[in-house]
């Protein structure tokens, strides 16, 4: 995963609550099989009119061209688990989303893709939104856990220490579980096989249920 340390960029303002993952990445593009290249479908219905012309949506405006930061409102990324929403943001160049609250699965998915979601609420959020609207540059420093606004003020934000470290190092979480925890997992499975054998299906029940023949096929 790509590392995240510090970014400086204009921030696109999206002052609207409840931007769900269907708005971020409409379902019909979910048929695509790859992670790469999804940025062109990002916010599709907001960025294009039915006739294909571009709207004045923030990410279409020259002032926010190349924005790496999105300042959104409450409950951003609610709805479905589609990681395509984050892949599309990342592919478009967005590295950081600031909002008062997030959909939980979306929030988790961000960290798997080098995108930093930051929770900022109340008057602070108003300030950040105003700064974004002004078209000035914000600096996000993950090492220092700070957001610096264009006209100078700087304030801290909070983030889970493990997730912070994972982003800073571009950590391969699966790799580290395999390297460090495989024995613990094996011990757990051995114990479960004794204590709750019904939870494991390794006895071939599944294979007998789904023989690859025509019995259950019309």
């Amino acid at each position: 995963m790509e590392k995240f340390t510090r970014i400086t960029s204009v921030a696109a303002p999206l002052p609207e609550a409840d931007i769900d993952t269907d708005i971020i990445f409409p379902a019909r593009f979910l048929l695509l099989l790859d992670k790469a290249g999804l940025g062109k479908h990002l916010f599709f219905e907001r960025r294009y009119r039915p006739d294909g012309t571009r709207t004045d949506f923030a990410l279409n405006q020259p002032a926010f061209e190349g924005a790496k930061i999105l300042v959104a409102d409450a409950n951003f990324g609610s709805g479905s688990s589609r990681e395509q929403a984050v892949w599309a943001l990342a592919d478009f160049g967005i590295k950081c989303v600031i909002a008062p609250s997030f959909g939980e699965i979306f929030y988790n998915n961000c960290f798997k893709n080098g995108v930093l979601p930051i929770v900022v609420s109340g008057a602070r959020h108003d300030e950040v939104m105003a700064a974004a609207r002004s078209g000035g540059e914000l600096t996000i420093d993950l090492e220092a856990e700070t957001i610096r606004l264009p006209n100078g003020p700087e304030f801290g934000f909070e983030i889970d220490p493990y997730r912070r470290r994972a982003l800073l190092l571009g950590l391969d979480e699966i790799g580290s579980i395999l390297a460090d925890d495989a024995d613990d997992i094996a011990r757990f499975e051995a114990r479960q096989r004794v204590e709750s054998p019904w939870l494991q299906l390794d006895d071939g029940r599944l294979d007998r249920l789904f023989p690859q023949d025509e019995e259950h096929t019309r």
Partner: protein
Amino acid sequence: MAARTLYEKVWDEHLVKTYDDGSSLLYIDRHLVQEVSSPQAFAGLDAEDRKLRRPAAHVAVADHAVPTRMRHLPLPEGLARAQVSRLEANCEKHRINYIGMRDDRHGIVHVIGPELGFTLPGATLVCGDSHTSTHGAFGAIAFGIGASECECVFATQALRQRRQKTMRVALSGTLRPGVAVKDIILGLIARIGTNGAVGHAVEYAGPGIATLSMEARMTLCNMSIEAGARVGMVAPDDVTFAYLKGRPLAPAGADWDRAVAHWKTLPTDGGAVFDREVELDIGALSPQVSWGTNPGETAAIDGQVPDPALEADPVKRAKMERSLRYMGLAPGVAFKDIAIDRVFIGSCTNGRIEDLRSAAAVVAGRQIAAGVEGIVVPGSATVRLTAEAEGLDRIFRAAGFEWRESGCSMCVAMNDDRLSPGQRCASTSNRNFEGRQGQGGRTHLMSPAMAAAAAVTGRLTDVRDIVGNNGAAA
């Protein structure tokens, strides 16, 4: 040991280890795999040359992209076929059991997991799909994950997680005739909001729960995510055990007895403390209908479209204005005066046999209103075959509905079942988001009986006005 909640007990039983920072490695017993969230997960696995840790922990099915018509024919050339073929190839390569779209056990992941007995009390179950919360109806910790986490489960059978806060929703009272469990969950979301339960594992409890069937409990847990909660649960009881007994993957013989004895220890201990408590008198509820573009924008059918001008909070007001513009609705219009074009009965929320029965009871002997199109999409082939054995398909067809094959269909509009721009739909699904049922489509969420009533009159309708207050359609 201190008194614990159901969620805490199942969590503790799946704890592989606790890290220094307090987060945990949680063991995952079961994984349902579908075509939309898996291709990139398999690709990631292959890129690192990693193997599946335990192929028998996964079952795969294609439900989102498959057509609900002409299923005997090969899928037409195109993206959907590529996606389904990719799933088949990945399952073959990684030795995952795959249920084909012509198999008589095909269906939406969240409908077939329980039908197969793959979903069990006290288990941890995940799927790259937010409505995985459905399976919590059995007393499992079940939650939706992204594709990266699917990849992690493939490779390690575990996920690094933090334990969530707990929230109890206590249901009291008895539903009035014509009011369904869908109205409970819509009414709850309207009250606490679409982010009202973020960060919490919800347990539905209270005297109202014991009377609910497994199908009803699944509808309830299914839409927990619409309140922001990844996890919704109901404690296992005799209703749960009766549903599971004899299911193909449920334990049998001595294992069954041991399992049941254990499952009986799972319900929340008296005196266990929840981080948050909410009470809902379900006896006070009327049938609900959504008017906006998120499930929290919902009200009782006897009301009218709300007026944004009366909303003090500017962010909420702007959201309401946008919702009404998208939905093509003016403040003050009575819900019952809103005409509809389409009706969709199906989805993992309301595509089960009881849902079809309650819709059929309203439709029986009646006709869909002129100009309205309706489809019924059973949540699984098992549901479809059961309904056909009961003659429900004939009732729907006689009324003018199309009777389809199992899948997600117009819940997510990834196949050909979709609204045209501006079309208005009475839908039993779970999300009324902009574009959810097709670009520019307008969704009103409601119960199956309410959708059936709307089909008959051609507008949003209180089902009690159609069938009388005798409970025939409850």
